[in-house]
């Protein structure tokens, strides 16, 4: 398959069009949506860059936390984690739980909303 331009380059081109050409010609509600659209493309670009690494880190951490064998999908392990929290098997004071949730969530917020204020609080 061709990748010139790559997916990231294509998204970057659309973002550039929105920011430099479309947005300056819009006002009111459409201008607001153009800003949102530009932010969405920025999130998509970050997601493209980090998803593979983030998902393997999350899977490795879940495998340790749940003490499960290899080969379980990320979704499956997250469902298992939810069940164990719901049943009281894992609590806020259980070793490693908060640390796992915090690391996973920090990685997600860095992709979704890297300037979100709660991220600074979590990392301080």
């Amino acid at each position, binding site marked *: 398959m061709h990748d010139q331009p790559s997916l990231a380059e294509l998204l970057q081109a659309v973002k550039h069009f929105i920011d430099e050409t479309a947005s300056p010609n819009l006002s009111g509600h459409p201008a*607001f949506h153009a800003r*949102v659209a530009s932010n969405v493309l920025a999130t998509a670009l970050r997601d493209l860059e980090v998803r593979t690494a983030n998902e393997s880190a999350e899977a490795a951490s879940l495998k340790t936390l749940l003490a499960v064998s290899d080969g379980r999908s990320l979704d499956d392990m*997250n469902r298992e984690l939810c069940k164990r929290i*719901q049943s009281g098997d894992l609590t806020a004071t259980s070793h490693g*739980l*908060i640390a796992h*949730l915090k690391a996973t969530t920090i990685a997600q917020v860095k992709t979704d*909303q890297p300037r979100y204020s*709660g991220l600074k609080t979590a990392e301080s």
Partner: protein
Amino acid sequence: MQDFEAAAHRLFSKVFGAEADLSDINRLSGGASQETWALSGGHFEAILRRAPGGVRPTRPSAAIGLATEAALIRIAGKESLPVAKILHVLTPKDELGEGFVMSRVHGETIARPILRDETFAAARLKLPGECGAALAGIHKIATNTLPDLPSSNGSDQIAQYEDIYRGFDIPHPVFELALTWLKANQPAPIDPVLVHGDFRLGNLIVDEQGLAAILDWELAHLGDPREDLAWICVNSWRFGVTENRVGGFGQLEPMLQAYADAGGAVFSTQEIDWWEMLGTLKWGVMCMIMYEAFRSGADPSVERAAIGRRVSETEIDLINLLEAANA
């Protein structure tokens, strides 16, 4: 659109008299669940708030409907609370769908300038006290004078939002832990009062003098007064100024003091902590609901898609709150 403009012209003359001629119609940004239009002509001006396209959407939220919202704003006005004046409630004859017309209160609703511009420096100092007093005023309104409203206390809301979350069948371990904590640490319930339900920047008009009007009563219900006091503390509603727990502009203690001074009950910061955790979880589930409107095709807007990626912002806030609670 032509139909809309013609109907808006007729409405304007109906509200202000035959000599009033509508010359400007502007859709105001924000307010994703309702349309807000600024209407003006000559020295007359008003705000039209109506359902999107005039049609009441089917939503999983507990929104009360625009006619009830107008009735509540009228009652709040009679109690001398800062609200716009209701000028007209739409009827089928108006051919504009469901909604109402209110006076235009000048000022700012967008959080960023309110929290950052020098223009609002004096207002920011007064807001914690004014918000405390206004909430005490809302919570004091005799419930037997109110139109029919849904009831929802802390336990109801845990059950309601847990149900919605489970219905999506998408695992969020942070939500699970927050739900467990909320159930284990619930404060004793208190007698239900009128709760605004969405009292925060974005839904408040602020001018240079301070709080000018309380908007967006569509989530009003009978419930726990601590819900309103804590909702404005939810970190998403501090709009980046995290160190100011109340709305990004003030501290909790002065708001609680003003609340008690204006005849409200005396609440501890620990009670507000619990409701802030619940509020944060609710906002997270609401983001999932709004994303679902996109996923299902009901609302294909980029805004609805984007909000799905705000769920993680509530998750990091819940982690921060859980860490503080267990410290």
